[in-house]
């Protein structure tokens, strides 16, 4: 399988990364090179093989469903590029 520039633009939109025309053209070539490389996986007979979901076969631990952390809005918002009164500020999303 290979991708065209329109597909790269669509995927970049899904990934929320703005790309210029030059970048889209370059990335199309690079993505096709990688997709060409991974194509060899089609040689493998995977009939009846379970997909891996966990590399270590251990039972997932569970914890009590209780609050262990929180109530620290100052620390949570300290690294925000723009914040006010412990809220994250973003461009208007609802008219």
């Amino acid at each position: 399988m290979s991708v065209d520039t329109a597909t790269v633009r669509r995927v970049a939109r899904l990934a929320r990364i703005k790309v210029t025309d030059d970048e889209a053209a370059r990335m199309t070539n690079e993505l096709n090179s990688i997709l060409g490389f991974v194509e060899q996986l089609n040689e493998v007979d995977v009939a009846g093989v379970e997909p891996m979901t966990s590399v270590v076969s251990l039972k997932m631990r569970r914890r009590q469903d209780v609050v262990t952390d929180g109530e620290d809005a100052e620390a949570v918002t300290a690294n925000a590029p723009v914040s006010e009164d412990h809220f994250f500020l973003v461009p208007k999303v609802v008219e």
Partner: protein
Amino acid sequence: MTDLTALTLAEARDALKAKTFTAVELTDAYIDAMEKARVLNAYVTETPEKAREMARASDARIAAGKAGALEGLPLGIKDLYATKGVHTQACSHILDGFEPPYESTVSANLWADGAVMLGKLNMDEFAMGSSNETSHYGSVVNPWRRNGSDVNLVPGGSSGGSAAAVAARLCLGATATDTGGSIRQPAAFTGTAGIKPTYGRCSRWGLVAFASSLDQAGPIARDVRDAAILLKSMASVDLKDTTSVDIPVPDYEAAVGKSVKGLRIGIPKEYRLDGMPAEIDALWQKGIDILRDAGAEIVDISLPHTKYALPAYYIVAPAEASSNLARYDGVRYGLRVPGSDILDMYENTRAAGFGAEVKRRILIGTYVLSAGYYDAYYLRAQKVRTLIKRDFETVYAQGVDAILTPATPSAAFGIGEKADADPVEMYLNDVFTVTVNMAGLPGLAVPAGLSAEGLPLGLQLIGRPFDEETLFTLGSAVEKAVGTFSPAKWW
């Protein structure tokens, strides 16, 4: 006084215990070495004041007879580890100014044992790279050079700063992480010892996530013993990481220097690649001879799905990365680039904040997970992963204790040398290491000799799950036969 930075971590530990010098004196020697080696660009942030403060506290604990396992020993920390109030950006522009209000579990374990932090180490952006050239902070220079050459070489990646700092004696040891070879490949390129432990041995909490099913923390160190000492402190079960395992952490140092008599070492024929340089093949044979002479039994084995590990990795890792890196949106931390509306802000921020390699992997990951392609790519890759793991399980069930392979297909290359190459060519650096991540196994890179051009070359030992001890035993046997390697100082 002799140069304190010439001591290994184990030697410095013993000298501090004997009160031959103080932790402050040792730390000052490293701060001085770091200042004089800035041309290597190994550190992205130096924290000398914090280091001296921690060293003074160590001296007080030593005086009070309350020294921890790593008391007063200065270490470097990869920029991927969250360090409270200190630069933590995974060497990406998009995390500009990020200083976490929390500490990663692994670094917290080191400080609890008394270690001293010297600063944060350079790396490939978000650990995506094999040469440290994708860092927002510029390339790291390998302290090693070819015989009679002044060409700057890469230290490998992604833990290039960690490997270069250890090799150049800018810290006693360093933390690193390994998703596809990011500890073992730079260790091999710099003549240092590095271990990627079994998945789950170290907590991933507080590591900037790349590919969560593959990421694992581990040390890079001067020699095998130092790596064993560091791993013991780094490893722990952690309620904050459900994939960390509740298995006691053994005394890894006790495994160093033990006899290898009777151990069965598998030599996988699939690792003998077409076009592999003769000196890599010769190095591998040298490793086989060393272990055989030391009493190990060498057996030929087959790991039939080896060649599919790298292509499967380049589906699984980007897929997980595209999901993990969705959080960098210009809202909660780091860089924000304004836009006409919120979507435009996201797109502008991510366009400016991510470098070319990171964008490439996010796009691949987004594509293989997108509607209509999931089964063909991601699901198939995860099935292939099951087969890769099964290959290892089969040989271990046949009584093989560990597997010996080369660590990398070449020695270190020049900075910029592969700039115009196809991305896949750079990915081939990890051809011997990536299988280990796909199967969740432990892998140790140990220096085994020098190339004809005078550059270090490494071997890789792959172990059973949670049997890092056997790797330390075998690694120390190789080390005993070949010695350790240090670059000639030119900086």
